[in-house]
């Protein structure tokens, strides 16, 4: 009897240990502290990010939000929800932020519509809501995003025309199914595909913007013997180049984002032919800047603000120069290089890399 009880409790503990990963929600708060620049630190800001834990872009986005909050001197506290979850989990996180009584909530949305009930509750409670990276449809919410459709269109058009010479099969490596940015990028990608009738899709993969998942997918394709002449990635890029190299597969033209590791690969003499499209992660800091403007009574005329992407290819001199100027091998490989946005963010690059919110030592 006693032994059975012991075995049971051990089993229970083991299962509990496995299960806790599932119910864990990462969240961090910077404790209250006075602002650095003398202005009154009067606002409390919440940030809800529902995915991409361990993805450099998402990490940089959150660091830029913290850095901008510190730099503004107007923010006493930044509460960040950063965990792998679905729309229902993000709804819960937003409601927790409402209950906490923050002044503004910045959201990287899991879906364009699914968060609307909680956003409506936040706005009803007098909280400013800014969606960054992708848009939400809730009335009264502000959207500050990179132009994702243009992002995909620019890269795909370059890949199909310059990279692949107008014909061949492309591997299409998407982000998270249903994420508004992924949906917008798909629109842009399909537009470019339609304009280049010589291009076919060799395979479509949904990477969830997770480097490990994407590596497995490209390895599966190569071991299945799938023939492809080009790869379009939704920003999970440098590990794909690594996987091609490791498998001894000849490089094919590849499009990625302005991530540190990928740009370094594009600049290498034996690197693949490719292009990086800018997708500044500092949109997180820009979101904080916009929220503070609104809180201070300076509302923008439009509720949707787009940041326009650029394309840097290593096949022309102008692109090469831009790649060289942006490259920073000291950054983690999956970190984006677009760490500031003119007119929006005011912190310096080292301040972002330090990744400290108000009051954090």
């Amino acid at each position, binding site marked *: 009897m006693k032994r059975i009880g012991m075995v049971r409790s051990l089993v229970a503990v083991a299962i509990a240990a496995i299960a806790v990963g*599932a119910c864990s929600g990462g969240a961090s*708060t910077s404790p209250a502290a006075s602002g650095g620049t003398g202005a009154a630190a009067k606002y409390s800001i919440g940030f809800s990010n529902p995915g991409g834990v361990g993805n450099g872009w998402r990490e940089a986005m959150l660091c830029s939000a913290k850095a901008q909050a510190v730099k503004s001197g107007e923010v006493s506290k930044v*509460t960040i929800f950063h965990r792998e979850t679905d729309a*229902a989990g993000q*709804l819960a996180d937003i409601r927790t932020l409402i209950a906490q009584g923050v002044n503004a909530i910045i959201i990287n949305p899991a879906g364009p*519509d699914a*968060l609307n009930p909680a956003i409506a509750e936040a706005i009803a409670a007098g909280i400013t809501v800014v969606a960054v990276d992708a848009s939400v449809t809730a009335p009264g919410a502000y959207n500050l995003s990179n132009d994702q459709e243009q992002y995909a269109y620019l890269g795909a058009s370059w890949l199909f025309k310059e990279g692949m010479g107008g014909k061949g099969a492309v591997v299409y490596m998407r982000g998270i199914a249903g994420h508004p940015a992924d949906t917008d990028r798909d629109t842009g990608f399909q537009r470019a595909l339609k304009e280049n009738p010589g291009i076919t899709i060799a395979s479509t993969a949904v990477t969830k913007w997770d480097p490990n998942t994407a590596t497995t997918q490209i390895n599966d394709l190569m071991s299945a013997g799938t023939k492809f002449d080009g790869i379009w990635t939704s920003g999970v890029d440098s590990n794909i180049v690594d996987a091609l190299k490791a498998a001894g597969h000849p490089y094919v033209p590849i499009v990625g984002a302005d991530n540190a590791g990928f740009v370094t690969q594009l600049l290498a003499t034996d690197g693949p032919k490719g292009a990086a499209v800018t997708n500044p992660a500092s949109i997180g800091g820009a979101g904080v800047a916009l929220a503070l403007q609104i809180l201070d009574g300076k509302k923008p005329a439009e509720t949707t603000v787009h940041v326009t992407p650029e394309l840097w290819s290593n096949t022309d001199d102008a692109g090469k120069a831009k790649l060289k100027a942006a490259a920073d091998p000291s950054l983690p490989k999956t970190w984006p290089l677009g760490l500031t946005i003119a007119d929006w963010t005011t912190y310096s690059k080292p301040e972002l890399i330090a990744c400290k919110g108000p009051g954090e030592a």
Partner: protein
Amino acid sequence: MSAGIGMVPGARARSGDTAGAWARRNVWTLGLIGLLLAFLALTKVIQPNYGAPGIQGLAISILPIAFAAVAQAIVVISGGIDLSVGSMMALASVTSAVLMKDQGDVIGVAVVVGVLLLGATVGAINGGLVVATKVPDIVVTLAMSFVWAGTALLILNTPGGGAAPWLMAIISGPLGSPWLPKALIVLAVVVAVVWLPLRRSTMGLALYAVGSSRLAAFRSGIAVGRTKIIAYALTGFFSAMGGLALTASGGVGAPVPGSYTLQSVAAIVLGGVSLAGGRGGVLGPIIAVIVLALVRIDLTFLGVDPNLSTAIQGVILIGVVMFGSLVAMRKVRA
């Protein structure tokens, strides 16, 4: 109501210590209620302006996981385990969202009923496979979790569809007092209407008996296979409720579920359901879901680093379960 759901029949206990066993099992649930109150108080201390709106948000956000926990509790009590709970929730969520989009209230009600039947059917298929193939539950339901998840993605490959307005209204906001969230009432009513009568029936006794000892149950003349299939069907039913709660909370169907399966396992372990079967109720797991949610909220309010907070939650979960087991073992010895 609470005593009813939390109570566990003394199927396992010898006649002499029935009263002791009864008290001991209820101590776990009572202890959890105490833990819940402690965490609520702690939340209020950390965040003085945490009040009725916070409770309402909490109730809506735990609703899908609470249904998942009830679903898992039933199958585990009957001696099985269902790793396809999350996938069945996704299937129910997308099916309801696709069928309900731009439809009237009447069709909405029909869809809800249909999805619940679908859930029960899908669950019965899981149970039928377990019984027919004699392959361990964990293997069958793991395999079926991929089947149901894939089916959900075939129905809707990105979040979409819609929810009937009444379905969203039924779980949002309070009823009467701002401290009484509708989501909590929905949870209590559904569990009370479906689980309580069943628990008190011969079928309920058979569930516990099969979970406690399959052989003893068989020799007592219980149709073990049929009982298991019914347990899985109930799990499917409550998973479908969880899926409907997902659709209702966001207004769209979610084809890729969160980690509800593992969360449900964590909740039943903390909720006092024995993974060996035959012991536990559904009130404990529901309270455990709320406690786990409050732990996360408190760690956020306290400003703990996200990664550290994950580790802390694990330690709290294991600590509570181990402490509970130790207390239980002491009692057995005494």
